């Protein structure tokens, strides 16, 4: 059974078309990736799925219910693009806060997942961009949601930390039978971590399928080549 089912979702901001009849399905144990150039509509679609934004047209069901249903929130974790952390808290205090809010997980488990070690006792405003992302992703994995929605989780991370996080996310989906929706600009990462890729361009869904299938269809060596072709 699909955990997220979006059908024919459209959204406009004034005269700007953000999404036009886009559909998406996310099932347990699968990682669905959204890719596309800037302004393609990835963040808008994620916000609609998380109930932060209302679609103009179409239907979005999350766990079989309307996406803005507040009762769904304990089953999902959302990491927005460029998300910040509350100032004044240490990393460990932030993990404890998230564990309390979700009613599960623990700061120790979060600490283990983040790999931040003693840095967790420092205040979050002293963290680099990469450290913040690691903490935020670890917080999400710590509370073991059934649905993980991540908007460019590895943006600003160096190669080794990107690898660490994408491995953690991919194995989490399999081990916990969770659905992951993952927006990214990094085609190599998408090729590695995703079971299904959706290419968005100017609000339209221009290509969808398993990475290998798409590459074969476009006779491309990698997803970057596909990206360049569909974005034209």
């Amino acid at each position, binding site marked *: 059974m699909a955990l997220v089912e979006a059908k024919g979702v459209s959204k406009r901001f004034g005269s700007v078309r953000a999404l036009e009849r886009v559909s998406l399905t996310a099932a347990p144990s699968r990682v669905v990736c959204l890719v596309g150039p800037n302004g393609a509509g990835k963040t808008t679609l994620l*916000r609609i799925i998380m*109930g*932060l*934004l209302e679609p103009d047209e179409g239907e979005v069901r999350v766990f079989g219910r309307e996406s803005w249903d507040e009762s769904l929130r304990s089953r999902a974790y*959302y990491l927005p693009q460029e998300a*910040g952390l509350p100032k004044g808290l240490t990393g460990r205090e932030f993990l404890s806060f998230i564990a309390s809010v979700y009613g599960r997980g623990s700061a120790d488990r979060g600490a283990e997942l983040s790999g931040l070690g003693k840095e967790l006792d420092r205040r979050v405003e002293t963290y680099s961009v990469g450290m913040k992302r690691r903490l935020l992703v670890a917080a999400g994995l710590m509370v073991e949601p059934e649905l993980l929605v991540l908007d460019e989780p590895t943006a600003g991370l160096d190669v080794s930390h990107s690898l660490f996080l994408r491995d953690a996310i991919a194995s989490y989906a399999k081990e916990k039978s969770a659905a992951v929706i993952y927006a990214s600009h990094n085609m190599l990462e998408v090729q590695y971590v995703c079971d299904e890729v959706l290419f968005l361009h100017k609000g339209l869904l221009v290509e969808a399928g398993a990475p290998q299938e798409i590459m074969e269809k476009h006779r491309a060596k990698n997803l970057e080549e596909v990206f360049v072709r569909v974005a034209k």
Partner: protein
Amino acid sequence: MNKLLALLRRELLSLFRDRYVIFSIIVAPFLSMLLIGGITVAMLAGVEDNGNSLPELSLCVQDAGDEVARELASRLGARMSCEGRYVLTLREGFGERLRTGERAEAVVLVSTDNPLSLPDQTAVAAISSALQAASLQLAIERGWTTPPPKVSVELQKKYLVKGKVMEEGEALAVASLQYAVALLFLILHFITIQVGAISVGIDKEARIAESVFTYPLRRRDLVLAKAAGVIATSIVALTSFTAGLAFVYAFLLAHVEVGGRSAAEEVSRILAEASFGAPQLLISFAAFLFLALSSSLLGTFFGYLFASDIRGALVTSSYVGLITAAPALLDIMLLSASTPLFYLFPIYPPLQSSKLSLYGAYGEGLLSLLLAALYAAVLFLLNAWIARPSVVLYGLGSMLRRRLY
């Protein structure tokens, strides 16, 4: 030259395309003028009502057979009575003294709840001038040419506060405490409203708000937690303010003399005269808490609506704070003006509550406290309604669209 022009163009575009700059240079001055205009109108009303046209005046004549006094009463438009807010009492033999050129004596008795009220003072000056003018006119009409009439008006005040007559010292003490409370409330109102707006501005600027709205939390809990946090800062501010005040008083008490007495004796006298004790302290503290709650919710409300970052929060809260503080400002300016419109300002019911308890009118003080609580509840509901992702992410414009998330 071209480089300078390019630089200038960049500066102008940056400034005039910044909505907070536009707010500060166009909307804020307009709003400020509304406030200053309101205060000016209140001042003018206080002066003009009593200067150009006399306030409602009662004339009390000690000599019932004094025909001149009755004639003056008619010319002044006063009703013959010895009761009222402004009572002009013409002493025994007033008419005869006026006719013979002797000094005729009158007393204006003002029943007031505020010894320092500016409108009361202007009213007395107006009554005195009107009596002088009417006497002179009467003397001319009746041919009492020499010497010109001399009228002396003595001012007496009756401190009638909520039906209770006070001694002058007690009334002055209560008024002094009232101003202190109004000042304290004004400062706390500003601090709290600013902290409230900033706490929302920080969440938006650091992009925390977007995540928070997806956590398994009820919106009313978000609003309540934010308000509670802001109130905690208000209490710290109150403590800090009190400590600063205590330091100043300690210095004054040790080094300053007031009217030949030490400042310590003077402060003790004021507190004793005003019968300031536990009930007033309790009601004032409760009023402070409700004010802190209302101001914090007002700050967060406008923060959600207009402050997309900390700078926006500072601009918004400064002007909202200024406008909503108007009744306290009027009190501090000794205008003692009051209109039912003031109940639109969240600072007013708590201020009234504290003020009334200082008068000893505890029942009415508690009623105002209830109103302050109601105000806080309404602001809480407004916050719960407005604190939603669509408003935080897409601003006020999203409210005009179909459904709010």
